[in-house]
């Protein structure tokens, strides 16, 4: 519906324009198409249609600013969507050959045999699952407790200082976390537990859990803050303590937002690449025994990051890595949808619409 009305709006404004402007619009559109065509056929020639497009856009900007702005913003949005769509399709298409070759065993086999050309994703799915669980165990309790403190317990001045500081932590590049994890925690743990090997799923989970903390804290805090003050006042006015109010009114009312925060944090843990790649030795074998969290294996992301270079000459391995990407994509997408649904439902409940 909105697509149709956008088209209508554009064609209506096209109809209102004078002739030079219509021609300019046409030339702009044609030059854009020509640029794409040139990109595929002869990349060097892209410059010419691109220059024409820029010239037309400049003319439009000075002659008909409103219409030009509308078209350009529309173009920007449309190309974002198209590019994302193309990437998604490409991802799936590239994963098809390995699926055809391996069938269902792609998702049920733990064999990653580069020489034999047989690939199963179970090892890396296991690695991702274990690190994600550990990361959740680290970030969920700490993050939720932190959010409760910031939003309900801390005085206002502390809240105003701490919240932005925590959000700042989310901006630290993941390679830094990974590097610290490898250099500091890894050697400490090797000493502590007398581990035989460098790196382990446990350290990766720990580091990712810490990385996810700012997200969990900040989103849970938002959820707690969204609980109306009137509701908390109602509890206090009945003669309950602040802590009882937090425990029995604020947290339950915000619980869906808090779960959304945890899921969001977990999503980050799932997709996290650098920490896992830096810390793990990338052994494509299941840990022995399976629950050995100090073992060294591989995750979906670290498999892609560490193998795409060497896989360049082997189409099946490349395709298997794309399949790993598809698995990640689907799981992260599902988590994000779940978390958004939960959050929307919470807003409805608190708004009393339900």
């Amino acid at each position, binding site marked *: 519906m909105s697509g149709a009305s956008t088209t209508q709006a554009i064609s209506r404004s096209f109809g209102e324009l004078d002739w030079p402007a219509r021609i300019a619009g046409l030339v702009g559109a044609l030059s854009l198409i020509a640029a794409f065509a040139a990109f595929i056929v002869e990349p060097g020639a892209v410059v010419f249609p691109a220059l024409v497009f820029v010239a037309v856009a400049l003319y439009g900007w000075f002659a008909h600013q409103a219409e030009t702005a509308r078209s350009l913003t529309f173009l920007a949005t449309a190309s974002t969507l198209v590019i994302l769509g193309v990437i998604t399709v490409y991802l799936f298409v590239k994963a098809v050959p390995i699926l055809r070759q391996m069938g269902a065993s792609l998702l049920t086999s733990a064999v990653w045999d580069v020489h034999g050309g047989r690939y199963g994703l179970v090892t890396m799915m296991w690695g991702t699952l274990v690190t994600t669980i550990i990361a959740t165990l680290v970030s969920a309790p700490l993050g939720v407790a932190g959010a409760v403190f910031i939003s309900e317990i801390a005085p206002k001045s502390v809240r105003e200082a701490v919240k932005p500081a925590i959000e700042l932590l989310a901006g630290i590049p993941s390679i830094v976390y990974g590097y610290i994890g490898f250099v500091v925690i890894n050697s400490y743990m090797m000493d502590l537990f007398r581990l035989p090997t460098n790196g382990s799923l446990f350290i990766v989970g720990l580091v990712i859990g810490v990385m996810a903390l700012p997200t969990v804290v900040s989103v849970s805090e938002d959820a707690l803050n969204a609980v109306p003050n009137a*509701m908390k006042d*109602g509890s*206090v006015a009945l*003669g*309950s303590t602040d802590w009882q109010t937090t425990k029995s009114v604020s947290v339950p*009312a915000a619980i869906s937002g808090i779960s959304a925060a945890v899921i969001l944090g977990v999503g980050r843990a799932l997709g996290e690449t650098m920490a896992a790649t830096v810390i793990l030795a990338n052994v494509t074998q299941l840990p022995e025994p399976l629950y050995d969290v100090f073992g060294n294996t591989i995750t979906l992301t670290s498999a892609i990051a560490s193998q795409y270079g060497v896989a360049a000459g082997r189409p099946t391995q490349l395709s298997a890595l794309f399949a790993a990407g598809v698995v990640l994509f689907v799981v992260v997408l599902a988590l994000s949808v779940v978390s958004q649904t939960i959050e929307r439902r919470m807003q409805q409940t608190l708004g009393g619409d339900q």
Partner: protein
Amino acid sequence: MSQMETQTTTGETEEQIRDEWLEYDFEGESALSVEDLDVFYGNDQALQSISMDVPEKSVTALIGPSGCGKSTFLRCLNRMNDRIDAARVEGTVEFDGENIYDDDVNLVELRKRIGMVFQSPNPFPKSIRENISYGPRKHGDIDTGLVARLLGRDDRDEEEELVERCLRGAALWDEVHDRLDDNALGLSGGQQQRLCIARALAVSPDVLLMDEPASALDPIATSKIEDLVEELAEEYTVVIVTHNMQQAARISDQTAVFLTGGELVEYGDTDQIFENPQSQRVEDYITGKFG
């Protein structure tokens, strides 16, 4: 108009708040005794040196135009203003022989004894039953938890009894008795307001502060609430804010009139206030000339 008069014939028409208009002699004890209460929000003064005694086991109505500080005054009486960062309260409120603004006052205990129903309904997003038993549970009067049951204590019967008694008290039982486990947010606005009244009753406070409890209700529910208020006054002290003059006239024993700027202009027997107000401004307000 009044501005002009004030400027030209000062002393003649400018009305000052006179002490005799605030004098209210009543028999019996006072439940709350307010002395020189000032409230500021930041730099704005919302209440100007309010003094009044609230007699126990009676209904005291607070009326006045919007924004004159009625809710602010009510919130002073159970120290809910403490929860507003910008608010600053000066003066004393004596309750049960103690100034509630003393440092060593136990706020939890105080609010247990001085309950409150807010201007807009604020039920918890829990079941109707849990809304009612919330207060008693927090005070440890009711415990139906697993641990309590394992220890041989199970108050489920008491809870049922309490829920029914309070819901009947708030004239809500007939409408909800077959869906006590439904979420309270699914009730209508008027039902939510009555649930909040029931919830406050469950704590058995000595004083009940009600901020326009009937503003969201239809005439039938309103009259139920009015009956309830009159009934409550046999056991409790009720202080009620209302915009509805007839309502104030119907249900209250004494009425305090606040006017814009946060002044208490006149306080006295309800019949006297409505039939024979001393202050010209109060008369104008009551007869609808000003407000």
